[in-house]
């Protein structure tokens, strides 16, 4: 198995493999032999997906067409009002804003992550391992603690302000917390490794001789990057973007803590519908909207990685 598969959680990211010819899967199914054996292998995973993913999802889906009860709960009376409410400017704005924040986070993560991943992939073997461990090191600490650490750093009397006033760059503490930039910073900090790892796997698999061949044929380094490196690492780019965009879009912890607790992102909105307003149907409709965006995204990714497919020429 390639490095990429090792890094991707099982069942996640159809991206990097989606463009491959079907040869591989037919070989795999032959290896699994009879239908019984196949079931034995697939059973646990499928059961898990069915019970923990499909059933709750079906529940959420069905809620969307019903009314909320007066004191919470669901009244089983069909209505389309949950969907019309989605387009209420108040909510629509939040959904759009969340997509913007997630997209911005993804873009910045890509711009920061690509050079990092590239540099790591070209390190000597020993340093490569050390650098990769460093990339995933933050995951060893609790997510909440890490986000609160940002509050401590960015708050009025926090580290950053102290340092800046200390060396005399500013006189008054800056308002660093509770804005969109803070949210993007927090999301970026949390999910950058998810961008770097698939990028690293894609760049690592790229045959360095292809870059040399390009130079040999008269291409400047920038042209080589655009015509050879970038298209051939596109599956990694797409995977990384999905890995960052998806959790960013649905995140409600970071906007809550770093965004000042207002309903800034759709994640908070959904959470509030379920836990505060106790409007399950509308919360479900919002959740469905997010899922719809993600499904469109996954289709785009699958399509794009088919366009850029071609597994030859990468070191396997």
């Amino acid at each position, binding site marked *: 198995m390639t490095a990429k598969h090792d890094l991707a959680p099982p069942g996640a990211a159809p991206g990097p493999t989606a463009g491959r010819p079907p040869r591989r899967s037919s070989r795999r199914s032959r290896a699994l032999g009879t239908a019984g054996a196949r079931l034995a292998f697939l059973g646990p995973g499928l059961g898990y997906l069915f019970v923990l993913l499909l059933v709750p999802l079906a529940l959420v889906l069905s809620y969307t067409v019903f009314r909320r009860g007066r004191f919470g709960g669901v009244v089983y009376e069909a209505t389309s009002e949950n969907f019309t409410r989605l387009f209420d400017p108040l909510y629509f704005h939040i959904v759009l804003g969340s997509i913007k924040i997630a997209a911005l986070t993804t873009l910045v993560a890509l711009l920061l992550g690509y050079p990092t991943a590239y540099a790591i992939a070209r390190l000597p073997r020993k340093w490569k391992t050390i650098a990769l461990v460093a990339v995933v090191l933050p995951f060893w600490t609790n997510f909440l603690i890490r986000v609160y650490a940002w509050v401590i750093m960015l708050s009025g009397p926090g580290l950053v302000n102290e340092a800046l006033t200390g060396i005399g760059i500013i006189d008054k503490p800056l308002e660093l917390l509770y804005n969109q930039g803070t949210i993007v910073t927090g999301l970026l900090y949390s999910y950058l490794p998810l961008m770097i790892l698939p990028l690293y796997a894609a760049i690592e698999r790229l*045959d360095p001789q292809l870059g040399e061949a*390009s130079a*040999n*044929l*008269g291409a400047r380094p920038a042209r080589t990057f655009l015509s050879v490196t970038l*298209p051939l690492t596109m599956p990694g780019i797409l995977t990384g973007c999905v890995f960052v965009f998806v959790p960013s879009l649905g995140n409600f912890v970071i906007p809550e803590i770093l965004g000042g607790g207002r309903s800034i992102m759709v994640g908070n909105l959904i959470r509030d519908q379920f836990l505060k307003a106790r409007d399950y149907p509308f919360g479900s409709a919002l959740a469905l909207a997010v899922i719809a965006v993600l499904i469109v995204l996954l289709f785009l990714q699958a399509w794009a990685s088919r366009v850029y497919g071609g597994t030859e*020429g990468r070191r396997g």
Partner: protein
Amino acid sequence: MSAVPEAPAVPRTLVGIEGVSRRFGDVVALDEVSLDIRQGEFFALLGPSGCGKTTLLRILAGFEAPDSGAVTLDGADLLARPAHRRPVNLMFQSYALFPHMSVAKNVAYGLEREGLPRGEVSSRVAEVLATVGLTEQAGRRPHQLSGGQRQRVALARAIVKRPRLLLLDEPLSALDKKVRAEMQLELKRLQHEVGITFVVVTHDQEEAMSLADRIAVLQAGRVEQVDAPVRLYERPGTPFVAGFIGANNLFEGTAVGEGLSAPGLGTLPAQGGLAAGTPALLGVRPESIRLGAGGVLSGVVADVSFYGGVSHIAVRVPGHERPVLVATQGPTRVTAGAEVGLGWSASDAVLIAR
């Protein structure tokens, strides 16, 4: 071609390599390599795997810098130019075709970098694809091609730029014997047609012999000998070359006036050139040895193999460790177990200082 051996004019040097060294940690890949590659010639770098052939090509192409030494192209410093500005194209050992581009796109890539008009790019691509016989595959991706076809794409991609110098790194090593022979002819024809200077790397001596105007034999990062194939075969200059090029019968001893004095074997005839008393090696080719009574040596036939055109006879000579190999035209009447004498004329044997 003007590469007639007796041509009086001094051939012009295209590439001058002077004292180039490159080490990787403890490994000395190239050790003070000096070579002159002449304009228009077909030059081969021959040597066992790991002797530094690829490293030398990578230095010429600009992917690797030597630790010391100089390389000139047309008298101008080549090392100062970045890889993408060198009029040198390399056909990679692994082909390094762009997997996301069609055959035609792969071939066009280098021309597009020169900023040529579209029309000219496509006509030159079509022309070179016709030359290598891949017109019908123009729209395919590399992974849809056979090994031989890929290799021809790599060749087309390198020659379409009409470089001053074409470097080929083991271009035929991935091919089976028959395709390989065809491609050798193809390469030779191409070189005559396009008039580019070729440097081909190979570890296959027959390939080097049949293709090259001159061959440099490399061993452990050093140049052992540079010569035309026939001279390399007939007059190996070092013990390594004598043992590496073709089958050879080698005897150790010391040079004397009329040949080599080999302990236990007596004096073996060879043309001199070495001062008497010099430790030396005598080399004599299997096809230069005559069988018959009254030779220099005598022994017992150990094995006879018939290869159609020639027969190989292995003769055990008391006092000599390895059997002496004799080649005769056509079938032979000698059978295993027979006592035979072995002889050769002094002019057919070489003496090499050890």
